[in-house]
C-alpha cells in the first residue's frame, strides 16, 4: 500500500534522511522509531508530501504520493496545536471540510466524534477553554475525522491519562481493522511493543532495523536470564556463560553468551534453582544497543 523507496533529503550540509526504504500494508500498525534528530519528522513530512524528497520515491497504491489526494491522509504532527479563539465545533468542521467532507457531512461526523470522546458539551466553547488533555483528544479527532487510509501519528500519547490512552488505542485498532495503514512514531517503547506488528528503527537518517517485531526480537541475539536460587554462588567463573552480570544474594541476572543448557548444567551443580526464565530482549534494549552499535560503527 505505502511504498517508500530509498528516499533522501538534504538540508544544506546536513543529510536528514539518507536512503530509507520500507513498506506499510493495509491493517499494519507500523512503529517508526529513532532517537531525536534521526530524521523521523523529515521522513514523515515527505510522506505527507509537505516536503519533497531530493531523490527516491514514495507511492501510495502505486501512485506517486505528490499526486495522491490529501483527503486520504490523516496526520497528527508531534508539534501540534489548535486555533485558540475559535469554537471547537467550527474548527473541527473546517478541518473536516478541508479534507473534502461536505458541510452537512462534516457537521454530522463532528457531532459523532465529540460524543464518543465525551466532548459534545464543548461544541460551542472556545478551544482555549478546553483542558490540555481535551485539546489532545480534539487533535486526535481532527486526524481521523475523514476516515483516512494512511494515518501518521507522531508521539500521539504524550500527555494523555491512561484512560484516554486506552480510548485512543481502541480507535487506532479500529482504523487498522478497517484496513487503514498506520504509521506510529514514538519514543515510548512499551507502546510500540503493545500496539505495533512491524517496526522500523532509524538513526542518522538510515534504517538500522526493520521488519516484523517478533522476528526482530528473535533475530536479536540477546536473551536475558533471571534465576532465583538457594545457596552460595561464586561469580568468578560466570563470565564464560553470561555478560552484564547482576548477582545478588539469591538472584542472578545477565544476558546469555553461551547456550542456555550449559549455563543450567553449571549452575545446578552448585546451587538449588528455585526458578529459571529466559526472556527475549525488550525493544528498548534493542533500541539502545542498536543505536550505540551504529554510533560506534560510525566513529570507527
Amino acid at each position, binding site marked *: 500500500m505505502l511504498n517508500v523507496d530509498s528516499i533522501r533529503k538534504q538540508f544544506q550540509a546536513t543529510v536528514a534522511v539518507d536512503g530509507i526504504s520500507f513498506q506499510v500494508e493495509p491493517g499494519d500498525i507500523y512503529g517508526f522509531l529513532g532517537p531525536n534528530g534521526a530524521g523521523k519528522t523529515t521522513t514523515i513530512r515527505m510522506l*505527507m508530501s*509537505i516536503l519533497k524528497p531530493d531523490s527516491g520515491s514514495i507511492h501510495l497504491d502505486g501512485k506517486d504520493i505528490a499526486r495522491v489526494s*490529501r483527503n486520504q491522509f490523516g496526520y497528527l504532527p508531534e508539534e501540534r*496545536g*489548535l486555533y*485558540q479563539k475559535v469554537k471547537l465545533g467550527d474548527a473541527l468542521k473546517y*478541518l473536516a471540510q*478541508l479534507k473534502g467532507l461536505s458541510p452537512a457531512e462534516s457537521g454530522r461526523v463532528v457531532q459523532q466524534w465529540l460524543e464518543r470522546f465525551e466532548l459534545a458539551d464543548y461544541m460551542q466553547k472556545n478551544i482555549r477553554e478546553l483542558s490540555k488533555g481535551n485539546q489532545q483528544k480534539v487533535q486526535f479527532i*481532527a486526524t481521523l475525522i475523514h476516515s483516512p487510509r494512511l494515518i501518521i501519528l507522531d508521539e500521539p500519547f504524550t500527555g494523555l491519562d491512561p484512560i484516554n490512552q486506552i480510548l485512543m488505542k481502541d480507535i487506532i485498532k479500529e482504523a487498522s481493522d478497517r484496513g487503514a495503514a498506520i504509521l506510529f512514531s514514538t519514543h515510548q517503547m512499551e507502546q510500540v511493543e503493545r500496539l505495533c506488528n512491524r517496526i522500523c528503527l532509524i538513526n542518522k537518517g538510515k534504517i538500522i532495523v526493520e521488519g516484523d517485531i517478533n522476528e526482530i526480537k528473535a533475530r536479536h541475539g540477546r536473551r536475558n536470564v533471571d534465576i532465583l536460587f538457594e545457596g552460595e554462588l561464586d561469580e568468578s567463573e560466570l563470565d564464560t556463560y553470561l555478560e552484564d552480570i547482576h548477582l545478588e544474594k539469591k538472584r542472578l541476572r545477565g544476558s546469555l553468551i553461551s547456550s542456555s543448557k550449559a549455563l543450567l548444567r553449571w549452575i545446578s551443580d552448585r546451587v538449588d534453582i528455585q526458578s529459571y526464565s529466559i526472556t527475549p530482549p525488550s525493544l528498548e534494549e534493542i533500541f539502545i544497543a542498536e543505536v550505540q552499535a551504529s554510533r560506534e560503527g560510525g566513529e570507527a
Partner: protein
Amino acid sequence: MIAQIIKWEFIQRVKSKLFLFTAIVIPLFILAAMILPSLLLSSESTKSTLIGLVDQSSGIGNDFVAQLTQDYRLKSGEPEFSVQIEEDPEPLKQALLNKDIDAYVVIPDSILDTGLASLYVRSASNFKTTDALRRSLNKVVLNRRLQKYHLDPEVVKEVTSRVQLRSYQLSGEGEANESNEMVDFFIPFISMMILYMTILFSSQILLRSVIEERSSRMIEILLSSVTPSQLMNGKILGLGLLGLTQLFFYLGVGYVVALYNGIESIRPQFLLTMFLFFVSGFLFYAAIFAALGSIFDSEQEAQQISGMVSLVMVVPIVLSTYFITNPTAIATRILTFLPPITPFLIVLRSGTSSIDLWEQIVAFVLMLLSIWGVMKISGKVFQTSILMYGKRVTLPEILRWIRA
C-alpha cells in the same frame, strides 16, 4: 479546498470585534462627529433669549433693540431676543447671576469714537448669541457714523461691495463645474486615506492570521490537507474580501457625508478606480505580509519589519499636500508609477481629476506585473519558511530560496 479557506478566513474575521470596530464603529463615529455639530447648531431654538441692556449713550440702545428685533426672529415670528433695559447695571448683574437673563450689554457714551461696548455673560461660549449681538450693534454704530458725515448708507454699501472670484473646474469633456477648494483638497485626501486604512488593516490581519497558525502549531495539521500555496492564496483572497467589505462601508459613509454636504463627488469611474487599485494594492502588500508572517514566530518579532513596510504606505500621505497641489508635476507623475505607492497616488490624482486614462492603464499593468513578481517571491519564502521554527531566517537564506 481554497474555497473553504477563503470562507473560513473571511467568516472568522468578519465576526471579530476588531473588524466590527474598525469597519463599522469608526466610520459611524466619524459620520456622527461630522454631522451632529452642524445638525445641533442649525436647529433653531424655539424660546426667546432674555438679555439686559444699559444704555449710557444718546439713543443708540433703542436703535440696537430695533435692529436686533428686525434681524433675529424665531420660527414662530416672535423676536429671538427680548431686551430688559435698565439705567444701572447692578439689577442686571443680579439677574444674570440668578439666571433670569442670559447676558447683558453695556453701551458706553463713547461708543461712536472707540467702537467699544461690553458684554457680560455667565459662560463665554455662547457663540451664537454673542455673534448676533455684535452684528446688530455693529450695524447701528455704522449707520450713526455714516449719518455723522452725511453719507447715504445705500451708497456706501454699493461702493464698498466686494469683488468675488468664482472658480470653475474644466473636466476632460469640456464641462465646467463650479469648484470648491475645500472639496478639491479633501475628497482626494479622504479617498486615499480610505484606501490606506483598508489595505493596511486587511494586510495586517493577514500577517496576524499567518503568525497565529504558526504559533499555535496549527500549520502542520493544515499542511497535511492543503498545499502551502493553497493556504497562502486562500488566506489572501479571504482577507481581501474582508478588506473589500470594509472599503464598501467606508465609501458608503463617505457618500452619505458628501451628500449631506451637497457634494456630488462620487462618480462611477472613480468607484471603479478605487476598486481596481484597492485590489491591486492589497494583493501587493498581502503577498509581502504573508511572507513576513511565515518567517516570524510571534507578532512582536514581526512588528519591526511590518512597521517598516507600512511606513512605505505612509509616504503618499505625508506628501499628499504636495501631490494634491502639484498634481501634474514631474515628481508626482513619476512617483505614480512606483508600484508600492501607485494605488495611493492614482486615487489621489483621480480625485483631483488630473490623471489621464493612459496613465491609469499603464500604472495598473505595472501593478499587475509587480504583484506577479512579489507573489512568486513570497510564495517561495512562505513555502520554505512556514514550518521552520525558532530559527531566525537571514536575508541570504531568503535570497537562496528565491533563486531555488
